[in-house]
């Protein structure tokens, strides 16, 4: 979900993706950089993202991942279901309302 959300803003390559997620989460999410790749492969298989070889800003041959239409739809669904779940959790956790 995080990957899809990031890619929705703009296409990125793997390293940039990791950097971006680290930065935006203010290092709250400590993930092993490697674990990104299996996740990316899964998204590729489901055809939620597309990958193309290209040049990065540092002039390096990289694979740039791009969100597909199916991916965008999936993201929406995921986000809305996540929000519903979050709302549910929040309500349960909210003290003394009922």
């Amino acid at each position, binding site marked *: 979900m995080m990957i899809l959300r990031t890619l929705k803003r703009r296409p990125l390559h793997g*390293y940039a993706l990791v950097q971006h997620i680290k930065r935006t989460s203010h290092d709250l999410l400590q993930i*092993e*950089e490697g*674990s990104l790749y*299996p996740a*990316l492969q*899964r998204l590729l*298989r489901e055809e939620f993202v597309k990958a193309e070889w290209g040049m990065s800003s540092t002039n390096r041959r990289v*694979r740039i991942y791009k969100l597909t239409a199916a991916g965008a739809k999936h993201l929406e669904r995921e986000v809305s279901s996540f929000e519903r779940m979050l709302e549910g959790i929040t309500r349960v956790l909210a003290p003394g309302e009922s």
Partner: protein
Amino acid sequence: MSWLRQLFSRRQLYKDLSEEIQEHLEEKIEELVAGGMSRKEATAAARRAFGNVTLTEEDSRIVWRWPSVEDLLADVRYGLRALRHNPMFTAVALLTIAIGIGANTAVFSVVNSVLLKPLNYRNAEQLVSLHQIAPGAPGLADFENGLLLSPSMYFTYSEHNRTFQALGVWISNTASVTGLAEPEQLRVVEVSDGVLETLDVPPTVGRWLSQADQVPRGPERVMLSYGYWQRRFGGDRTAVGRKILVDARPREIVGVMPHGFRVLDTDFDLIVPTAFDRGKLILAGFGYHGIARLKTGAAIAQADADITRMLTIWMDSWTNGPGTNPHFYETWKITPMIRPLKREVIGNVSDVLWVVMGTIGLVMLVACANVTNLLLVRIAARQQELALRAALGAGWGRMVRGLLVESVMLGLMGGALGAAFAYAGVRLLLAIGPTNLPRLSEISLDARTLGLSVLLAVLSGLLLGLIPAMKYAGPRASLALRSEGRAASASRERHRARNTLVVSQVAMALVLLVSAGLMIRTFRALRTVDPGFTDPQHLQVMRISIPGALVAEPERVLRIQNEILEKLAATPGVKSAGLVSEMPMEGFDSDWDVIFAQDKTYPDNVMAPLYLYKYISPGFLQTAGTRLIAGREFTWSDVYGLRPVVMISENLAREIWGTPAAAIGKQLREFSSMPWHGVIGVIQDVRERGVQDKAPEIVYWPPMMEYLFGNKTADTVRTVTFVIRSERAGTEGFLNEVRQAVWSVNSNLPLASVQTMEKVYDKSVARTSFTLVMLGIAGAMALVLGIIGIYGVISYTVSQRKREIGIRLALGAQGGDVLQMVLKQGAKTVLVGVAIGIGAALALTRLMTNLLFGVTAHDPMTFAAVAALLILVALVACYIPARRAMLVDPNVALRYE
């Protein structure tokens, strides 16, 4: 489709992936270096941040695969490679499994077709045979068919029953058909109304015989078998309505039965109606097989009760003639024993088939044990490889699976090969199997049989792999890595599995060899029995029938038969010729009736014992080689002069008068209206129904006599077996001359069942010889496999203990001591196997009691001989590796360290 593309583009995907990961690391390193780190530190840091590269790649790759299937495929590939690397092992293992599975499948296909599949009729489970016994009837106990039905019984049962949908009686017969081509002797089934309705198989062309066709002296009709229809009419549908001459009387063809239709297991050419003349029937005449179809839901016990009830009605409704008491049959204690038709068809062959099936099953187990042993040896050699894999982190579940996949693959490949063997095996079985095997034509490989071979393949594969897998791929496998190569001597525990296998192999081989030994003893016992004729390979037999429509007067019939005999005797190379109503073991339904002796008294004057009776011509005894014990035999003047003479078998003479000599001059008759016949000769006992059955008491009448069929006027037997003794018996040239001799007397006479007596004899012992051959093969296979097993284990142990033996020798042990030590180990294994085997054989051979003759199932001689043989052969198998152990050079063995 995308998965297909994935499958093929996968290599590209993986390449992209690893490249991408490399780039990732590079980028990170450069960034860190730019931040002031040394390149070396940066590389380490980058890797640390990234995690395990290989694992990541693997995890990423997994995304593209079906993990379980692909792991399995990898195992299969690995297994195949392992098998290919060891072609000798693979070939031996495959062949062993294939022979095992092939033999089992072949035998099972016979068992399945003959014993398991329902009969080829609609709702065959409703079909029963109206079997009944009469324990109170003297003399009848010998007749294995029990008490057959009389025509009057048929009418009573058919009209008064409450439990049958349909019911009928039938009998097989022969008839000659003339006027179409050469005269032909055909197989005929005579059926009453109800037989076709019971079997319920619609005709291919035309209609069934109907009740109207059963009227005596009414229109004469006939049905054809499919085969005869094709042979004689070329499958022409207009054959229906035409007439053929059956026994010289015209009969109209009303229908054709479909291909493969049989009456029980009787193949036939024609079906004719019995056309009983109701007005003339009496109680007696028990000569017909009864079959019936039970009403839906009716049980056999109910049907038995129904028959019991109707027996009283039967005795109330009919009589045996004036002055007789119809209820005297109560003393016969006639008891219905209705049984499923399938059992009737199968007969006693089920014993043989199950014994053979069990035998082959045992061989399969021995074969599996052997292959397991091979696998164990192989896996012991691969132990370090396995330990290494375990050390590298392979889960033991995965390793067990790998080994099992390998052995199941072995099983499946063996199974495929086995199916091919089975196909050949069925052919072979049919070739060597008893020719009188019921349902022979139905035997084939079908889905069920092939299913069994697949099942066997998988099961044996799992079984094969399980023991080695559990033993070596277990959690403790890593220990092996440390200990391998250092073991000075075989640990006891390591050989337990293989010793157990050898013990069980020896035990199973012993069981099989004992069974085979018992069969050999049986066969030899059968061979020593005097069947009542001599030199059967030089006895030519053939059936000739002279129908009444062809030659009316009885005496003329006898003259023709006599003339044929003279012509035959004059044929070059013929020593003598004679005729008889039927030869022993020919398998025709026997005739029997009450026989009265003049000097004995019988209750009620009708209660005499039943005996078999036959008709023989002068010269028959000499031709057949049957000995005359006392008195003299018939002469032609006895026969033509209608003199009241009779001959009897030795056991009958002893039974009635004590000694053969005492019987001469005594008087006999069949029924009260018949004049007394004087006994002029006593004949040796003849094994009428095969050497395995005891010789029945027999009365021999002359071939022409008054009251032959109850009528006062003289009559003759029109269908007889001609017997010719000649060195040339069975040769084609001889048969031609015989045919010419017969046709020179009357060219309208067909010859049937032309064969040598040796064939007849062989057929009668076919069951025994078939079982013997099968058990012999199985026993030999088990012996060879068992010996290989013992040899393998001992020589493997010796090679493992080389260093230990070297040390022993170096420390001063003598070669003889070493030899003794190794032999002792082998002997212990073998003796345990033999002991277990004897126990198992004692329990199992009891199952084959029915197949034995002249030897008990626990024959101590056979047991002792087989045990001795097995021990001896096994010790030789041990001796070879033991000698090798003795010759171990201590220097070489120790330097090897």
